[in-house]
């Protein structure tokens, strides 16, 4: 399967975006063969516009989209391949299963459009329905199916003609929580087995982390960060990314001792508590540090290593497999999770230096807030 390359596409709609940003601003990325790439972001971030631009339902104002050596869209050459000629498979948020056709007719339609011989149509429809475990429902009409089954039909319809790339537009958003969990695993497994190249749009961070080979985090029509789920989660490129993916403590502080040897010392919070961070910062200035709640170590006994703080429990809630603590750590508000229930109200908390990640660094006038593919290069001038 060919790579999809999106090169510097922009799009703005007649009226300006409420925030003043265009719908898409200079978006570029490449989807590699066999990869499942997720476009992740809040509503209105431009992820669906990107997907529909690739599918051909919208035309960007600028830029170029190619699939292998085939040009889908090229603004400079005033070229746009019609959606029906792009040979992509798409699963719609509403599934868009045609209500007047049976399951088999829905799945067979793309083959009929391609003038496949009748016996071959029947055979491929059967195979594909087996693949999505819907073989028994071939003669049913969509209104006789559950949401999860309709979604499988939509997927079968998008797969039956072996499209170059599979586009998935929030396919799980209409399923209930339990079903969504199962559908995710199933689709991921199917994608891996068939080695499908897929672009997946979602606003659900769990879905993105679960399914993706690579995640593109978008906001206000821009790509904020691209990386594997682990990279994006553990080393967020900006405060927005850190907060959008899961829960996060953001600690504001000052660099007290710039260093290039693995450990930097900061002064954080109103009490200017000393905090060691396992990262090189070669210039002074104010920083924001992201700390995941599950990375904070909690104990009812005093901890005596670096970054240990005494903490008072402000609130605790039971969430099934863990407890969530809202702490006041020597004036520093901190959220932490633990599988254990700790007798309060005074406990010890420790933030391991390796669990701290600097998401922004203001070095005097120059801002190091980055919006590129990588975690910030926190270096001096």
């Amino acid at each position, binding site marked *: 399967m060919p790579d999809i390359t999106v090169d510097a596409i922009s799009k703005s709609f007649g009226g300006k975006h409420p925030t003043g940003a265009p719908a898409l601003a200079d978006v570029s990325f490449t989807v590699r063969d066999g990869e499942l790439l997720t476009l992740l972001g809040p509503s209105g971030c431009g992820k669906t516009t990107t997907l529909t631009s690739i599918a051909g339902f919208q035309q960007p104002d600028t830029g170029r989209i190619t699939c292998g050596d085939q040009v889908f869209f090229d603004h400079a050459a005033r070229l746009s391949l019609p959606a029906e000629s792009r040979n*992509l498979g798409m699963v719609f948020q509403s599934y868009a299963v045609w209500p007047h056709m049976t399951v088999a007719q829905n799945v067979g339609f793309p083959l009929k459009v*391609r003038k496949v011989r009748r016996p071959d149509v029947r055979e491929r429809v059967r195979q594909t329905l087996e693949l999505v475990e819907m073989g028994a429902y071939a003669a049913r009409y969509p209104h006789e199916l559950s949401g999860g089954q309709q979604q499988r039909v939509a997927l079968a319809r998008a797969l039956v003609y072996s499209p170059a790339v599979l586009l998935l537009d929030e396919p799980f958003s209409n399923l209930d929580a339990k079903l969504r969990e199962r559908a995710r695993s199933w689709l991921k497994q199917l994608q891996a087995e068939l080695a499908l190249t897929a672009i997946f749009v979602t606003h659900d961070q769990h879905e993105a982390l679960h399914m993706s080979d690579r995640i593109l985090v978008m906001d206000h029509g821009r790509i904020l960060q691209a990386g594997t789920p682990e990279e994006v989660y553990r080393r967020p490129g900006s405060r927005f990314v850190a907060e959008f993916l899961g829960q996060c403590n953001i600690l504001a502080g000052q660099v007290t001792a710039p260093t290039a040897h693995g450990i930097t010392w900061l002064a954080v919070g109103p009490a200017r508590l000393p905090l060691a961070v396992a990262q090189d910062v070669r210039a002074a200035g104010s920083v924001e540090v992201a700390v995941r709640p599950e990375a904070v170590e909690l104990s009812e006994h005093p901890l005596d290593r670096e970054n240990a703080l005494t903490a008072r429990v402000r609130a605790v809630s039971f969430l099934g497999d863990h407890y969530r603590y809202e702490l006041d750590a020597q004036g520093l508000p901190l959220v932490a999770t633990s599988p254990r229930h700790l007798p309060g109200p005074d406990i010890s908390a420790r933030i391991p230096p390796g669990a701290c990640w600097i998401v922004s660094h203001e070095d005097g006038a120059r801002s190091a807030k980055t919006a590129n593919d990588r975690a910030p290069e926190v270096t001096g001038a």
Partner: protein
Amino acid sequence: MISLTRRPLRSASPGRRSGRPENPVQALVWLLVLACVLAPVLPLLYASVQSKPIYDTGRVFSLSAYSQLFSDPAFRLAARNTAEFAVITTACSVVLGSCFAVVCARSNVLGRRAYGTLLAVPVLLPPLGVILGWNALYGPGGYAHSFVTSTLHIPFNLNSVPGMAVLGTATAVPVVFLVCQAALATMDASLENAGRSVGAGPLRVLRGVTLPMLRPALINSGLLVFTLSIESLGIPLVLGSPVGHDFIASYLYGAWSSAASPDPPLVSAGAVVLLAVACVLLLLRSALLGDGARFVSVGGRGGADGTVALGRLTRVLLGVLIGLYLAATTFAPLLALAVESVVSQLTPLVAPWHLLTPANWAAVAHGEYLQAIRNSALIALAGAVATTVLVALATAVAHRSRFTLRRSLPFLLLFPRAIPGLIIGIGFFWSFLLVNPPGHALLNSIGGLTLALSIRSLTLAYFVLSAAFATVSTALDDAGRSTGAGWWTTITRITLPILRPAVFVAFILMFISILNDYDPALFLTTPGTTVMGVAMLNAEAQGVNGPVAAMAMIQIAITVTAIAVGGRLFTARIARRGRA
């Protein structure tokens, strides 16, 4: 697990420069609609500024037709009559129609469900049948005339302008009722419930919440009724003209059919004046309501169901009153017509069972009448098929394509509604004369009639289909495109099949509308190509009442059958689909 082959099934097609039509059909449909809409209008404008009829030689550009028209006292009188008729009809029908709609939608009046349908259905009845029924019942010498004037002491004269306005009101009430009913159905009743929860009584809520929110619907239906009233032709032709009360439309028809030299420019000038007024009203309507409001879509349910519980007596009394209204305006006239069709003479002086005769029905079974029935059925069937296909495609181009000129289509499709029927008749007459071929072949043929009558009804199909298209998610189209289907395949295999019920309703509406229409045909029929409405008007003018009543009954029977069959199939399909 089965693995799918990785070989693509179709090699990629070359790219296309943006902006071109996706399919030649789109441009073709647009051109066809444009031609159909302009065909009756342009030649008319041209004919109105000529010194002599178009077929005469030695014509010059001249505005004399207009000065002649405006200086004719008969025209000025007709204009005054028309205005009086339109104002009374509009005022009365808006008040009555909206009251009925509010009472049926928001109170527990006796029989509210049945009235919800019964008050709306007369909109589909053949207008000429209703007029003739009224004439038989309430006209001078009519069956109920002496009851109304002597027993009830109401000085009612159906042949006067206010008398005709009463009939006009009765035919316009269903229009207002439908528009208000749709508005009330989409209006969330919890807004009204909120008013009552803060302590306002039902009447206070009606005044403070319901009526202000209904204002767009009232303006919309009021302007619609006013437009329909000023172009009204059947009412003055049957009731007014014989006693000298002409309207603009009947004045023009009289001038057309009785002038020394036929088809004088004067008639074209008058038609242009009427068209201008209708266009101004249409523009006014869209300015006041915005684009969206013109497409009233029935069916959206409000959040809560709010009904005011009336007192037991009020509930029954109101129900009986509405029932009496329906009986007096719709059922009694139709009954009178039915009786008239089986008696030699309908008169209050002799009991009808003494005058029973099969002669009227025998008369319509052959000769000119039978020919007219055949022609009407043929025209309605062919016209309905052609119009439904054209409008379905045009709506698809307008709402589901990237064709550059698609945005002009909704206006083009709405425009025929603003053109009075007689203008379509006169306009097509001129365009058949001017554009040859194919004009002369169409001039005295069924084909020409079909064209004129179809274009007049086109907008109705667009109303139905545009509302239907709006209910089908574009994701269903996009899904078709993404699997490789082009515009044509997507529209014909996915979108239109999903819309089958709506397409069918549009077809039935077209059929009824074309079958019962006669305004344009008055100017286009020749002895061999007459249609039911024209045959009935001609016979009625000669005082032949029995066969006319029989013809009207046939028209009503076909209409009711079509509605019943259509409604039944439609609800069956909806039910099957709705089981989701």
